[in-house]
């Protein structure tokens, strides 16, 4: 039976670089996938593109591509990534330029376009899932609308001979599923195979989160050598069989436990993990350690895809102002609480226009609120944090300023003020009839 080995080279845009180099050099892989596109990244990248038409792709693209391209080219490893963000064509051109500069001008670079569905969404005036109202009601606050594309155009690009495929918004598991569809010729209506392939993609998409990252808990769940965490490899057979492993000698661990945690990561109803290509069913999945750092995952299934694609809509939401200051030693918590009371009253007295305010005592109740923190011991030091939502930056700045004035006007011995004010680009979702998105493959640099 034919088997492919797929390496996962990044789990988010800022992820470590050298684990991907290790995968390319020592992983004996056929494909290297970089998942780098967070929920609101495309909206932020769209803002960058509006200022400069040649930008709008992942800022680390050059560093990542340069680090792995020579090895990938010499070994024939194909690269798939969503680092195109809001401008996959510019990202592909940049990649072609990097390839030429490395003496690799013969590489074929493809961009996947068509995820930008802003016009179709406006025309349809679609309902926003998280908010009351439709997309038109966002008015000029609307920045971007990008559909989560499926695996098909990526597989088409690979079949067209692409050495590097760069997408914008695409479903994260689909980046991986595409390599399986291309390698094995899986039918796009073989729902059980697509479901099991989605299990593989889902397990791999967060890179280090299945090899021991986001997992260690000393004394309960110990993981060796997290500073040298190895990124995962999926060994996928043409029948959908799957083993998760990593480069021998790298840090971290692949165990049944790490695989189970990642299987349910960001999953709601496990029988309906909705993807562009399939509705995957994780409920019958089995996880089995077959050797050290080798875990077999089987039983993923699927049913037909829905008639819609999820679209991530980026919009200008509000502004957030923030201020922090620390107190320590005897009475630290009491002084922190006094400081919060003072700022609360000051924001009222001076009429700061905030639609939402939050007062936290970091070290006591900032993560889980006052109920869960009620029986905790008193810490040696605390940090107060005041945040508020405002309509404009001028108001947001006033929140941090009020915290700063605690230096000379607040409780004794407050130190280490930090303040910030920022615009908030948020995302919401709409569902677009799938025939309204028209993904296409675009080869560059030849």
């Amino acid at each position, binding site marked *: 039976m034919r088997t492919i080995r797929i390496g996962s080279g990044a789990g988010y845009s800022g992820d470590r670089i050298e684990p991907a180099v290790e995968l390319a050099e020592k992983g004996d892989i056929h494909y290297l996938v970089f998942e780098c596109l967070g929920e609101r990244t495309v909206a932020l990248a769209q803002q960058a593109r509006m200022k400069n038409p040649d930008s709008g792709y992942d800022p680390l693209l050059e560093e990542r591509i340069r680090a792995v391209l020579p090895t990938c080219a010499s070994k024939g490893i194909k690269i798939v990534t969503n680092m195109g963000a809001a401008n996959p064509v510019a990202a592909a051109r940049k990649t072609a330029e990097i390839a030429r500069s490395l003496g690799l001008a013969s590489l074929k670079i493809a961009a996947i376009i068509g995820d930008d569905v802003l016009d179709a969404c406006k025309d349809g005036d679609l309902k926003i899932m998280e908010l009351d109202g439709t997309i038109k009601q966002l008015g000029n606050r609307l920045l971007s609308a990008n559909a989560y594309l499926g695996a098909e155009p990526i597989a088409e690009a690979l079949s067209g001979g692409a050495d590097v495929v760069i997408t914008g918004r695409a479903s994260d598991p689909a980046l991986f599923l595409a390599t399986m569809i291309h390698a094995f010729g899986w039918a796009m209506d073989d729902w059980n195979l697509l479901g099991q392939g989605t299990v593989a993609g889902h397990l791999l998409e967060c890179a280090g989160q299945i090899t021991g990252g986001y997992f260690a808990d000393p004394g309960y769940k110990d993981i060796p050598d997290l500073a040298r965490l190895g990124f995962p490899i999926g060994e996928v057979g043409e029948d959908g069989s799957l083993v998760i492993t990593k480069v021998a000698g790298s840090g971290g661990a692949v165990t049944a436990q790490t695989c189970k945690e990642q299987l349910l990561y960001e999953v*709601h109803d496990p029988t309906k993990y909705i993807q562009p290509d399939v509705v995957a069913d994780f409920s019958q999945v089995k996880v089995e350690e077959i050797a050290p750092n080798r875990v077999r995952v089987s*039983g993923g299934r699927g049913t037909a895809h829905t008639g819609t694609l999820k679209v991530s809509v980026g919009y200008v939401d509000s502004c957030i102002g923030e201020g922090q200051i620390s107190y320590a030693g005897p009475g630290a918590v009491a002084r922190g609480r006094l400081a919060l009371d003072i700022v609360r009253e000051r924001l009222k007295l001076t009429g700061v226009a905030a639609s939402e305010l939050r007062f936290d005592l970091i070290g006591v109740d900032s993560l889980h609120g006052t109920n869960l923190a009620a029986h905790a011991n008193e810490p040696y030091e605390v940090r107060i944090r005041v945040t508020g939502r405002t309509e404009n930056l001028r108001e947001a700045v006033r929140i941090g300023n009020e915290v700063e004035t605690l230096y000379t006007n607040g409780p004794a011995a407050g130190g280490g003020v930090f303040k910030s004010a920022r615009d908030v680009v948020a995302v919401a979702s709409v569902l677009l009839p799938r025939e309204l998105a028209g993904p296409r493959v675009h080869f560059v640099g030849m």
Partner: protein
Amino acid sequence: MKLREIAHSRTGDKGNTSNISVIAYHEKHYPLLREQVTSARVRAHFAGVVEGEVVRYELPNIAALNFVMTQTLGGGVTRSLALDAHGKSLSSALLDLEIEDDLSA
């Protein structure tokens, strides 16, 4: 004993919804999880954190439960005022849940 002694856990986020897995270290403890880690108890444990509902899904093949908690992440990860906007630290809070183990093997 604490839930932490028999189960491990991971939090994920989508918009304003958080999901927390609770996975038995040993299959024999799965019935205990099913009996005692109910959606009502999880809802009560996270009073003041979860504003919406808590739905529980069962995965007997991997001896795990999955809790989906709506209106939990300060209006959504991308706009929340919270320090931990993703709610990544919530799994540790759930492992502090008290479990009665007198009937287990």
